[in-house]
């Protein structure tokens, strides 16, 4: 065995056995598809966005190798912020997440976004996720725009 070939073979074997970000030559990627929007919120009145709300629910897409197991982790904001140090609390519950191997929100399966999700990509290497939540304005909540960030992290498990 020549030196270069041995090195390359070792690298491929290690990557395939350990489930790295690349599997079978197709890299794993995540992209944000829609912002989570609480459109009309009033002081003292909680506002819930359902994960099945096509317009306002947050959405992500995952692309990777076919039928590979992926570990998904959400970083959920506890509150949104506005100018002047104002904050608006958010709450996420066990049914606020939805996932599907097809881009079909209506048939998505519910999951708790507060804990890790382990699922397999589709035959085409795709996953679709949606996220709802609840805004909890106080009775004295000041008017204005509040913003925050929602993050999804994905990694192959090797299975």
């Amino acid at each position, binding site marked *: 065995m020549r030196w270069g070939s041995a090195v390359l073979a070792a690298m491929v074997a290690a990557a395939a056995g350990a489930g790295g970000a690349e599997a079978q030559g197709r890299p*794993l990627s995540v*992209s944000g598809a829609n912002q989570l929007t609480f459109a009309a*919120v009033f002081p003292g009145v909680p506002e819930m966005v359902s994960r099945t709300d096509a317009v306002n629910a947050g959405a992500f897409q995952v692309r990777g190798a076919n039928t590979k197991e992926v570990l998904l982790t959400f970083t959920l904001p506890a509150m949104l912020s506005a100018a002047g140090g104002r904050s608006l609390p958010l709450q996420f519950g066990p049914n606020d997440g939805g996932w599907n191997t097809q881009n079909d929100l209506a048939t998505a399966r519910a999951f708790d976004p507060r804990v890790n999700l382990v699922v397999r990509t589709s035959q085409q290497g795709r996953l679709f996720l949606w996220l709802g939540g609840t805004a909890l304005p106080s009775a004295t909540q000041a008017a204005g725009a509040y913003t*925050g960030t*929602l993050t999804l992290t994905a990694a192959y498990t090797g299975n």
Partner: protein
Amino acid sequence: MRRRRVLRAAAVAALALLAPVAAFAQVTAAVGVSATISTTALSIAQQSDLDFGAAVPGVPVTVNARTGATAGMYEIHGARNAEIAITMALPTQLSTGFWTMPVTFGNTSGCWRRQGGQNGCNFWNPSTVLVERIRNNNPPNNQFLVWIGGTVTPSAAQHTGVYLANITMSVVYTGN
């Protein structure tokens, strides 16, 4: 030659040990989250009934909007300092089945205030349009309070029963 083979194998093994770092490689994406708080919504809440209680035939019963404990009370919330117009569609009689009983509203049948209790409210005749400002304060102190009374006049031969009517109160901002 042998030494070269040993070195080669050691390098391959080292690479195999290093390679597992790639197994925990993660990819991340983010989307924004936004919420818009609006404090200009118009809301109306009913706090208590207008109740004339037990009426003796032939004896009118009046509920004073400022002093009557059974006056009806509304609480309006909206944009601070916004001007609102309140219009009341008032009945002229109550009815139960075929029987009716006259009801009238006068200068002490309506009362309003931006804050505080009923005692200090300002009289207005609910048959006229009331144009006033919502309290100039942030929620939840952006209120406007309304009390409603009136007078029923049962006849001496008034039939027993439950007499009912509707009052419709319309609220609108004048500035749009």
